Every structure is written in structure tokens, then in C-alpha cells.
């Protein structure tokens, strides 16, 4: 695929970014719906785990929108939300392994995203790589 110097406004959501937004969209839906339903129906069982799922879903949603929209602000939004995801999946992943009693029920980030083919672990790293790459191409 020839690397065209498209204007800043378009680059983040074109090329591989197109696939990235689709994956983020599906994960936003999955995590938000999961967290929302669990909080609504069985809040008492594992409030922390369910709230975390909902939080992860919202972060995925923000990242998807940040990647899909044009402009500097959304690029920053995407950068911040992908960073939050990296920290989230590492901290929650480690906590779920070291202190399983804190998480009676799984979240998308438990066991470093193992319940979701480790996509939650890989996705934000790919996202950050893509944002950096587009940013460098833009600057040159």
C-alpha cells in the first residue's frame, strides 16, 4: 500500500486505522454492555469488577471516537485513552493474578485480557504505535 501524505484530518482513521476503529468499536460495545448489565442486575456480587468493565468500555469508546475523528484534539484524546488502557490492563491484570479475592467476577482486563484472546493487551499497544506513526509522518 503506497503511503500517501494525506492531510492530518484523515490519516488516523485511514489505512490500518480503519481496522483499529472497528476493533475498538466492538470492544467498546462489548465492555460497556457487559459492565452496564452486570452493574444493573447484580451490583452486590462484585461492584469493583463490574464498575471496571464499564470504565474500560467507556475508555474504548473514547478511544474509538478519538481515532475516528479528525484533528489534533481527538488525536490527543486517542493517545490518552490508549495509554489509560495500557495501564489499566497491566494493573488490573496483575491484580487479578496476585489478589484474585478482590475480583470475584472477571472483567475485560482480568488476566491481562485472557478471556478475550489477549486482544485488550495488544490493542492499546497497536493503537499507540499507530498514533505515533501517523504523528511522525505528519511532522515530516
Amino acid at each position, binding site marked *: *500500500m503506497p503511503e500517501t501524505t494525506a492531510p492530518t484530518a484523515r490519516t488516523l482513521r*485511514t*489505512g*490500518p*486505522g*480503519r*481496522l483499529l*476503529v*472497528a*476493533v475498538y*468499536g*466492538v470492544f467498546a*460495545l462489548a465492555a460497556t*454492555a457487559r459492565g452496564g*448489565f452486570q452493574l444493573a*442486575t447484580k451490583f452486590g456480587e462484585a461492584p469493583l469488577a463490574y464498575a471496571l468493565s464499564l470504565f474500560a468500555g467507556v475508555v474504548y469508546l473514547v478511544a474509538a471516537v478519538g481515532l475516528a475523528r479528525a484533528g489534533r484534539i481527538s488525536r490527543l484524546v486517542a493517545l490518552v485513552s490508549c495509554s489509560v488502557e495500557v495501564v489499566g490492563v497491566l494493573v488490573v491484570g496483575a491484580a487479578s493474578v496476585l489478589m484474585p479475592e478482590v475480583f470475584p467476577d472477571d472483567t475485560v482486563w482480568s488476566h491481562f485480557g485472557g478471556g478475550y484472546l489477549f486482544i485488550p493487551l495488544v490493542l492499546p499497544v497497536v493503537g499507540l504505535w499507530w498514533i505515533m506513526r501517523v504523528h511522525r509522518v505528519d511532522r515530516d
Partner: protein
Amino acid sequence: MVDWLTMTIQVASLAMAGWCLVSTFRDQPMVVPHLVGMGLLWLLVLGQVGATVVTVVGGDRPAETAMFVSYLATVALLPPACAVWGFMERSKWGPAVIAFACLILPVLFVRLEQLWNPVA
């Protein structure tokens, strides 16, 4: 849910994913035949969703109805949403989007069947 329709959708979806992956690796953008394929897949999905909604309205519903209905809505919307999103991209990443959607779809149907028949 109509079992044979679920099976057909899963097989068709995986075939579609395979085709789109081939297009991606051959560096081809999404073309109209891809779109027709997604349209046919969507019709199958809508058939299953329609038949299931009729059953649910008729009173035969799974224990976790709200969760089940949200999965139904997702499978109904996923093919057209991804087809449009992929078709807007005029590079090999267009079929890549469809391939991803077509790999997710059979998994969603596995979850739907689990919710429909919790024992299985």
C-alpha cells in the same frame, strides 16, 4: 432460534472472512462482490433475528432476556456497520475490517446459542 440457520450463518461468515483475508493479503480494496456477499450474509442474519424475535414475543424467551436481546441487536447491526466502514476505505484495509467482523459474528452466535440454551 433456528439451529440450521445459525450453522449456515457461521459457515458463511467464516467463508466471507477467508475471502476478505485473501483480498487483504493480495492488496485489493473492497469491491462490489464483497458488498453483495455481506448483503447476503446480512439477510441470513436478519432472517435468524426475525425468527427469534417472533419466538421471544410469543413468550418463549431465555432467562437473561435483556442480555439476549442486546446480543441480537448487535448481530443485526454488525454486518452493515462494518460493510459501510470497510467500503469507505479504498485500500486493503477495507476487506480487513470485513474479515474482522466476519470472525466476530460466529462467536456472537455461539454466545447467543449459549444464552438461548444455557445447559448446552
